[in-house]
């Protein structure tokens, strides 16, 4: 199967679009949770192709974007620990904290390395046995199992200079927070594809039924998104909101049980601080007591200077779906990918970056 061509087939797309247009749905506001979906939607101009009755809004599913300024400040402070090596995914490197960014800390001489996987960070620890190596754990259920695995591997192999600063977040609790606030008037949810490979499609079902919002797990190709929109419309027509999977080549109802086990072994649910939302109970992952020697928040307790949010930045509202990048006075002028003010402009999965990169859509 050739994913890049078959899932971008124009004839199939126009068939799906016609089907969506025929559905008896007067209007529907649908949120795509995941930043990966936002990118697909912008890149292929899907908003422009969908009938005007369907409105797509971007959600909070960008791990870098939802990381709180406080956490970034902690990490920046931690980078000043003598001999420490911080290992991070590339996106986090450039996000401005209250006073500078990791990129600037690196230029000042701190040892901060970009890695592609927590297992690479583990290699850095193996290669530098006399220095503490801290991996900055961000991401949703997608990345958390691999980070958990790195901790298990470190314990098994006795790599005692390796630890993780966990800023991991869970998707269902934040969705519930958004839905329960009732401010967005949503009629559908495109649920995250990669997260669901781990959690399974089942985790969205209680939310879908409780709030009466059709929820469909989608893949990352344009046809995947269109299929999910059609399935949401079909549920709206039938008046039977529930969780369904439009990404069956990657996602099952139960999810990846082994990955769930590994994640539970190392992490416990904890309250988490979300940019633009604040503290949400049970929406994050903290390292369990028995893995304390691998928990950077215990090993390197730091007190950063008071956090300050960049004035004028509305990333928080954008993450909640309450505002769009075009509503921001800084967008494209003071805030660009070259000199980002807020995280939504840094991450390749951020709404502002996607909008900037693909320049929005051309009217008409």
């Amino acid at each position, binding site marked *: 199967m*050739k994913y*890049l061509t078959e899932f*971008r087939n*124009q004839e199939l*797309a*126009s068939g799906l679009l016609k089907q969506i247009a025929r559905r008896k749905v007067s209007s529907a506001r649908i949120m795509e949770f995941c930043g*990966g979906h936002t990118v697909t939607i*912008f*890149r*292929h*101009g*899907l908003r*422009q*192709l969908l009938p005007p009755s369907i409105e797509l809004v971007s959600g909070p599913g960008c*791990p*870098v974007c939802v990381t709180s300024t406080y956490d970034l400040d902690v990490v920046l402070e931690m980078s000043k620990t003598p001999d420490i090596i911080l290992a991070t*995914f*590339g*996106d986090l*490197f*450039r996000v401005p904290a209250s006073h500078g960014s990791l990129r600037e800390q690196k230029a000042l001489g701190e040892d901060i390395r*970009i890695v*592609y996987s927590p297992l690479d960070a583990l290699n850095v620890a193996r290669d530098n046995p006399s220095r503490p190596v801290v991996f900055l754990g*961000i*991401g*949703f259920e*997608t*990345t958390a199992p691999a980070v958990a695995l790195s901790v298990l591997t470190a314990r098994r192999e006795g790599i005692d200079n390796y630890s993780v600063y966990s800023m991991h977040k869970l998707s269902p609790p934040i969705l519930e927070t958004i839905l329960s606030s009732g401010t967005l008037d949503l009629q559908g949810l495109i649920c995250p594809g*990669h997260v669901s490979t781990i959690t399974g499609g089942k985790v969205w079902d209680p939310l879908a039924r409780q709030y009466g919002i059709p929820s469909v797990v989608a893949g990352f190709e*344009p046809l995947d998104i269109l299929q999910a929109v059609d399935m949401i419309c079909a549920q709206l027509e039938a008046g039977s909101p529930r969780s369904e999977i439009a990404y069956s080549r990657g996602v099952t109802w139960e999810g990846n049980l082994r990955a769930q086990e590994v994640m539970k072994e190392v992490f416990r649910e904890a309250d988490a601080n979300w940019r633009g939302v604040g503290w949400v109970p049970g929406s994050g992952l903290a390292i369990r007591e028995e893995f304390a020697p691998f928990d950077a928040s215990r090993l390197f307790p730091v007190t950063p200077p008071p956090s300050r949010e960049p004035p004028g930045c509305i990333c928080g509202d954008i993450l909640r779906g309450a505002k769009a990048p075009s509503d921001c006075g800084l967008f494209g002028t003071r805030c*660009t*990918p*070259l000199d*980002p003010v807020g995280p939504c402009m840094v*991450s*390749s*999965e951020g709404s502002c970056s996607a909008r*900037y*990169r*693909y*320049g*929005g*859509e*051309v009217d008409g």
Partner: protein
Amino acid sequence: MDRILLAHGSGGRLAQQLVEEVFIESLTNPLLASMEDSATVDFHGQLAFTTDSYVVTPLFFPGGNIGKLAVCGTVNDLAASGAKPLYLSLAMILEEGLELSVLKEVVDTIRLAAQEAGVSIVTGDTKVVERGACQGMFINTAGVGRVPEGIVSSASRARPGDRILLSGAIGEHGMAVLSKRQGLTFQTEIRSDCAPLGELVANLVSVCPGVRCLRDPTRGGVATVLNEIAQRSGVGVFLDEGHIPIPEAVAGACEIMGFDPLYVANEGKMIAVVPVEQADDALSAMRRSPYGEGAQDIGEVTEEMPGKVLLRTAFGSTRFLPTLDGELLPRIC
């Protein structure tokens, strides 16, 4: 002795030996062998003059190495002004401890690339810096060429109605270097497209004297070059995504790493903006040339949307293709 020492850059006996045994021996031509302070050449006509420095890591990548890049990059900059590339200078900054065999292999590649490009390396310089002060070697080449009479290539000359031609598949150099740098292996190896385009340009301008603009889409890729043309000419550029040749392996690797092939570097491709009435001849000339077999007409210049580049997606929608700033970072999930 099989490694570069600081003394090789000192101007003494070792330095002389290095120049004679590695450079003169390999790159031999009368101008270089004269070992004068400057090369002096006869010249008449319109001169094109350019320079570029090469600091790529790793030094060797699938499809080429830093030496091939140093020749092709400068040759292609000359070609982009419509010129026939003639002479290059070669300045090398070597890291103490560099293996001599590595240097010889790079210089040998330079010889072959220069031969193929039809240019002579007529003057040069070598410096050695302490270990850690550069990564293996840096190279600078400057080049001169002759522009045929009546040919003017400039980013400000595109006019509504012009066609945009691209000499072949995009994204190979950037993805080849990046995959190698990150230690990523794909089922299909992506090889750099690094190649000299002097002949392709000579063929093109001979049948398309009205050519408006030639540009080699290196860093920043096709999208960045076309944005520059749109802005400097005050015109719009509309591209057809379906006509832009993107190798399957490049598309796949870009997808995995979160890049857009339209922004990925090329080192053996040329974009030509040509008047519509000469477009067919220009396209045929490109396709007859070495490294131009895959040439395509990828879009047109318009009066509407001045300063902007727009992409008609294969999906039937139209979106902007802006200038990208900030480095390309791989995505994380």
